[in-house]
């Protein structure tokens, strides 16, 4: 069972990838086996005075996410992700959530696939 989370600036798969992890607006979730998209708001972590990255990890762990794609992930959040058994990929910004997932799955996609 895999579940992919992508830090996102909006609640659709066409939203841009949020380059920030902890303070991302939310996470686009994609379940490859069910081919199902959903969205997880990160408001609670964003509002954290500190440790936003860690709060985001808690959120993803509760949602049983297995892989997270983002722009850059802070060192503490990276440690927490490892502890939670969630794989992480950085440098996924500069594209839409759908494109990021597609690139990750190396799946052919419509439109301008990232070369």
């Amino acid at each position, binding site marked *: 069972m895999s579940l992919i989370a992508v830090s996102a600036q909006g609640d659709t798969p066409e939203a841009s990838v949020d380059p920030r992890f902890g303070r991302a607006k939310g996470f686009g979730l994609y379940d490859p086996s069910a081919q199902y998209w959903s969205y997880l708001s990160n408001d609670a972590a964003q509002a954290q*005075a*500190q440790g936003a990255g860690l709060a985001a990890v808690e959120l993803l762990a509760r949602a049983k996410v297995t892989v997270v794609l983002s722009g850059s992930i*802070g*060192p503490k959040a990276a440690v927490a992700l490892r502890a939670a058994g969630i794989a992480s990929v950085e440098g996924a910004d500069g594209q839409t959530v759908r494109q990021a997932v597609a690139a990750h799955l190396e799946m052919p996609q419509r439109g301008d696939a990232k070369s």
Partner: protein
Amino acid sequence: MTAEITVVSGKGGTGKTSVTAAFAKLAGRTVICDLDVDAADLHILLQPEILETTAFEGGKIAIFEQNMCKGCVLCERYCRFGAIAKIDGVIKFDPLRCEGCGVCAQFCPFGAIVMRPRRAGQWFRSRTPFGTMLHAELYPGEENSGLLVTQLREEARDAAREEGCDYILSDGPPGIGCPVISAVSGTGFVVIVTEPTVSGVHDLRRIADLCNHFSRPVGVLLNKADLNLALADEVGALCAERGYPVLARIPYEPAVVRALVEGRTLDSVTENGIADGIKHAWQTVISSLGRKEKCQQHANNMPTT
């Protein structure tokens, strides 16, 4: 990718801010950040025009509802920071000692304590001739300066992304504690400004150890370099041993202070080769980051003031 350059010094008063201001001018288009939120001075030299002011909430603080308090002093027992004490039968709360942990509120059986956000300062997004500047004012005696530093850096990264800037140039705080750790962790290059004094050398070792602890690349700028040649040699040896480039040796020169009083940056101080020294230092920082060409390009487009 934007490169973050952070100017620090273990010991205060070695000339960080003057160096940062000169670098800001030499960098051309950059995002400038004053991370010395405790005693921010960079605005004095760069005269930013404030575009946006945002409140900074640094954690929480306990608020007592005196009429609900039954005087059980459970809170006093739980508070490990000595912020709560029963004196002459009255609960006294010392806000300066409150860390905002919320343990008192959690365990108060009468709900007499609530945790409220603590307004600890404000930060500004401003415009300078050299680029967007992010700076802040921490209210006196407030803590969480590290958190404010982290927020400023996040804002700076957003600004650099929006504006397509190659560099974020930050004036860091003195010391090696919380705000310094927040300022240097994950930064692309650390410039340590030091001086050949007994304290300067001692504190250089500590800040260098800190940079090492966080695996940050370092360059050293020796200010007042001719004040004590033996100690200047000691700084040189330390740099050689650790593989730090010595970015410049700036002599002890009263003209530097005159420039400061007149609001001019170091790159305009032609006495004693100071302007050339600081330009050389900036070039070395840039080439350490592997961006020599871009710098040339920027140098040609430098705003003239």
